[in-house]
């Protein structure tokens, strides 16, 4: 078939003539099926406009069910009807044209200016909406026609589809649709251009229907219920209504019924046609099914998220995909995904049988449907054969070159892995398959951050790529290791999380000595070929060896040495770790290598000289070391590094053990006493003083604040202080070795605030950033006196979560908690909509080869992408290079 090119798309209105021309059948009976069970001739399901019954043939094109796409029919309306979709425009046009001669109420000159403007904007492909709006507005101001001198009357639009004319005495006269149509017909072609219409494609009077197109039955198929009864589509129901009323209108009119009855029927017909187009019109009761359910008519089919556009065209359900629960597996690589065997047996990849893979393919077919087998084979003539228990052996023997084999997924196949909401491009990445037992997808926990996944029941989707091109593209662009650096902020988004950080923190902290066996143990499952020179030897007297060995010196390696074995040679990094006390910011000198906390990390030629490894070094979102390795050595080295580091962390933390229990939140009685007295009680006393000062009129207002606001602000400050102080005291009593403190300090999970709230004091609850003040008149709860401003009357929780909250504290906490919940719910829906709008606005922009950003017409939007031409996913925190680092390197080279 010859490829055809789309030259253009034309939008317009359907004229009555056109509707009749495309109609295959004029429909006059509201009935569908006759007593014989066959569609009724000239009925709504007649055989000229499409077939939905198996075995029947279309009387228009001769096609069977499935072949015949369906054909439009039509209903001749006995009276003109306003098209609801154009009701507003009709009103505007009526108001802008003469009631007698139909010309647009503007002077010749003005008209020409507007016409010229419209023409120019059309050429420039700019929307002419604003000009048209202006035309309609200006023309509506005229009171006497400048062409036929007819005085104009004011037009009133009564929603949804009625128009009235008001004469000079203020009397209203209804304009029936027939009057409206007549008026629109009078508008001359040259004036139609002024409404932004082309009279060849859209004449105004075509907005008033005289004939209604009937969609083919294929667009509104009836379904047969289990009881054998037929249930018609909502659209068919609506069309039945229309035909009935249309017929009654005709009968009444022909019988010479009174005008009142005719108008009522006309109105009813209008209502049915309105709701046929849109059953959700403001101020109109929706048409309902017998059961009371509102009917789903044309507009409802198209509109919204589940509508034809967003639901069926932009988004569809797809084949070759799987979805199941996610669980962690730290032993697989970051670019792998564990796929359940059941899934691997269902999803297939089509392989062409060639000389080179013939033997392998024959073996595969020979296995039949047992795992690395096949589901279908396709012979050279294109016939598809299902592989069954009984035929697989014959098929394997018959296998020939040129056949196609739909084989199961096997280890190493590349697939796309996705977790909703897909907010950024890292929400879909390419993974390599690893077929595994059981029923869940397995994922390396280091890849959780880009997907924002956890394992509390999350499900993910997998898509199997079907063409070689797609596989190549996925491998080059979407592989996990390609996307270690996030395009969002130019730093690693994949890195150690949770226990890996704790493990490395514990491992690299303090001075440890490992004899050979221990080194090998901690390095198990990691490829290290050379342990290098040991850092020293245990003295024979240290009691390390047993028996003969006790006399011999035993070599040992330090933790920093072992960590260095994972680092690539030539790597140089220096930075201040997370435990840094910010000496510089406090005006003191940074001790660097001699830092007492060992917070200064220095890596020289791939050797960890000093420093504790924490979240800042290897975590996702920060990962300074990962970022450096990625830039210097590339994705593969980084991938192995992350894998090795994870294994080291697990090996070590498994050895020393790490847990956090409820007793880890315990603080000795004296500590609790101290928190009560020094922090909470002190603050409460100060708050009382503030209140006394306020009531005594001694309090001075802060600039820009009312006196009461000042008081509230100071109280809030004081109470926040109380919580921080109690946190500090708690931290002292918990000690640095407390697992909670360890996790917070290393950045593995949680913060000191979390610990404070659990162990010491929950603190002030707030609603909209203020203390809680709503509830009863002048008080929050009936337990307090009206006007009580004390801390406990406005939601200060002195207890810790561990100690437990008093009933009142509990209630205040619930108030604050609910606000947080509502906020997140509102935020997600708002940001979701905002993102949708952004994506729709930006989706056609493209970075061209010359670095410019252009839209589809080739208009330059930006002369340089992002103004600096930097791809953030290849940048260093969004910068082209880290200048300081470059200089440091250059200086080193010189020395």
């Amino acid at each position, binding site marked *: 078939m010859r490829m055809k090119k789309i030259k253009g798309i034309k939008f317009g209105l359907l004229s009555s003539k056109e509707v009749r021309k495309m109609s295959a059948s004029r429909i006059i009976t509201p009935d569908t099926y006759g007593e014989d069970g066959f569609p009724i001739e000239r009925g709504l399901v007649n055989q000229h406009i499409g077939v939905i019954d198996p075995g029947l043939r279309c009387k228009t094109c001769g096609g069977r069910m499935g072949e015949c796409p369906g054909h439009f029919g039509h209903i001749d309306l006995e009276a003109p009807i306003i098209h609801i979709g154009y009701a507003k425009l009709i009103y505007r046009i009526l108001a802008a044209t003469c009631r007698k001669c139909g010309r647009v109420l503007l002077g010749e000159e003005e008209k020409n200016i507007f016409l010229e403007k419209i023409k*120019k904007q059309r050429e*420039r492909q700019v929307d002419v909406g604003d000009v048209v709006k202006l035309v309609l507005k200006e023309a509506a101001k005229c009171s006497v026609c400048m062409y036929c001198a007819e005085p104009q009357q004011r037009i009133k639009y009564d929603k949804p589809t009625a128009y009235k004319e008001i004469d000079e005495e203020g009397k209203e006269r209804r304009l029936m649709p027939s009057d409206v149509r007549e008026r629109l017909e009078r508008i001359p072609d040259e004036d139609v251009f002024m409404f932004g219409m082309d009279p060849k494609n859209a004449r105004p009077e075509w907005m008033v229907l005289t004939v209604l197109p009937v969609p083919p039955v294929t667009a509104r198929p009836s379904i047969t219920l289990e009881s054998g009864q037929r249930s018609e589509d909502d659209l068919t129901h609506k069309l039945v209504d229309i035909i009935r009323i249309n017929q009654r209108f005709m009968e009444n009119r022909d019988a010479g019924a009174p005008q009142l009855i005719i108008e009522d029927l006309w109105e009813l017909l209008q209502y049915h046609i309105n709701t046929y187009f849109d059953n959700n019109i403001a101020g109109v009761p929706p048409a309902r099914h017998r059961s009371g359910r509102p009917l789903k008519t044309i507009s409802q089919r198209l509109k919204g998220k589940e509508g034809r556009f967003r639901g069926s065209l932009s988004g569809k359900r797809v084949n070759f995909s799987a979805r199941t629960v996610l669980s962690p597996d730290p032993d697989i690589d970051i670019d792998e995904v564990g796929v359940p065997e059941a899934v691997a047996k269902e999803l297939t990849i089509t392989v062409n049988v060639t000389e080179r893979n013939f033997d392998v393919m024959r073996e595969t077919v020979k296995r039949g449907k047992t795992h690395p087998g096949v589901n279908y084979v396709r012979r050279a003539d294109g016939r598809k054969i299902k592989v069954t228990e009984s035929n697989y052996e014959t098929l394997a023997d018959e296998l020939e070159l040129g056949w196609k084999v739909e084989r199961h997924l096997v280890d190493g196949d590349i697939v796309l892995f996705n977790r909703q909401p897909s907010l950024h491009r890292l929400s879909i990445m390419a993974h390599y398959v690893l077929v595994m037992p059981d029923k869940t997808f397995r994922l390396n926990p280091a890849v959780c951050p880009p997907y924002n996944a956890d394992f509390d029941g999350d499900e993910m989707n997998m898509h199997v790529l079907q063409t070689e091109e797609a596989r190549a593209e996925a491998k080059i662009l979407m592989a996990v290791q390609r996307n270690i650096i996030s395009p969002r902020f130019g730093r690693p988004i994949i890195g150690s999380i949770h226990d890996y950080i704790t493990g490395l923190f514990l491992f690299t902290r303090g001075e440890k000595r490992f004899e050979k066996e221990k080194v090998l143990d901690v390095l198990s499952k990691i490829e290290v070929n050379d342990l290098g020179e040991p850092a020293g030897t245990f003295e024979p007297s240290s009691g390390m060896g047993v028996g003969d060995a006790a006399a011999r010196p035993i070599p040992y390696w330090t933790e920093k040495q072992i960590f260095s074995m994972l680092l690539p040679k030539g790597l140089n990094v220096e930075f201040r770790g997370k435990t840094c006390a910010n000496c510089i910011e406090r005006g003191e000198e940074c001790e660097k290598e001699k830092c007492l906390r060992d917070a200064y990390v220095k890596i020289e030629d791939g050797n960890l000289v000093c420093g504790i490894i924490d979240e800042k070094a290897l975590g996702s979102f920060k990962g300074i070391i990962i970022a450096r390795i990625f830039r210097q050595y590339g994705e593969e080295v980084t991938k192995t590094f992350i894998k090795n580091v994870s294994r080291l962390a697990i090996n070590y933390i498994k050895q020393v053990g790490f847990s956090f229990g409820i007793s880890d939140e315990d603080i000795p009685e004296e500590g609790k006493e101290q928190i009560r007295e020094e922090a909470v009680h002190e603050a409460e006393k100060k708050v009382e003083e503030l209140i006394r000062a306020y009531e005594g009129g001694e309090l001075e207002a802060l600039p820009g604040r009312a006196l009461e606001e000042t008081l509230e602000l100071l109280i809030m400050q004081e109470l926040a202080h109380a919580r921080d102080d109690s946190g500090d005291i708690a931290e002292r009593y918990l000690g640095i070795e407390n697992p909670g403190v360890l996790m917070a300090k290393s950045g593995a999970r949680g913060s000191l605030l979390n610990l404070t709230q659990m162990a010491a004091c929950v603190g002030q609850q707030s609603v909209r950033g203020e203390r809680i003040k709503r509830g009863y008149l002048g008080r929050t709860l009936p337990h307090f006196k009206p006007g009580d401003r004390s801390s406990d009357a406005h939601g200060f929780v002195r207890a810790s979560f561990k100690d437990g909250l008093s009933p009142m504290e509990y209630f205040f906490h619930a108030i604050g908690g609910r606000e947080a919940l509502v906020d997140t719910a509102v935020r997600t829906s708002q940001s979701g909509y905002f993102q949708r709008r952004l994506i729709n606005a930006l989706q056609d922009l493209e970075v061209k080869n*010359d670095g*410019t950003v*252009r839209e589809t*017409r*080739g*208009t*330059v*939007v*930006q*002369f*340089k992408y*992002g*103004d*600096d031409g*930097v791809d953030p996913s290849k940048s260093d925190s*969004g910068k082209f290079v880290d200048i300081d680092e470059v200089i440091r390197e250059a200086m080193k080279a010189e020395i």
Partner: protein
Amino acid sequence: MKKGKDSILEHELVPKHEIAGEEEVAELLDTYKIRKEQLSKIKLSDPVIKEIKAEVDDVVRITRRSEIAGKLLSYRLVIE
């Protein structure tokens, strides 16, 4: 300060707008291999355009301070 007499060009939030010379425009169009119509547009009624008295079909050079790029040049075609 004089009331209502200050030029908007003086305002710190208004980047520098100048009418680009013919040569400059030719070079620009040649560098990016584009037609004038492929530039971003700015309306003749824009206060800045009135201020610098540019006319339809002129190209204005806009010099912005940018946090990422330092000095940033962009061009716009004046339309009706």
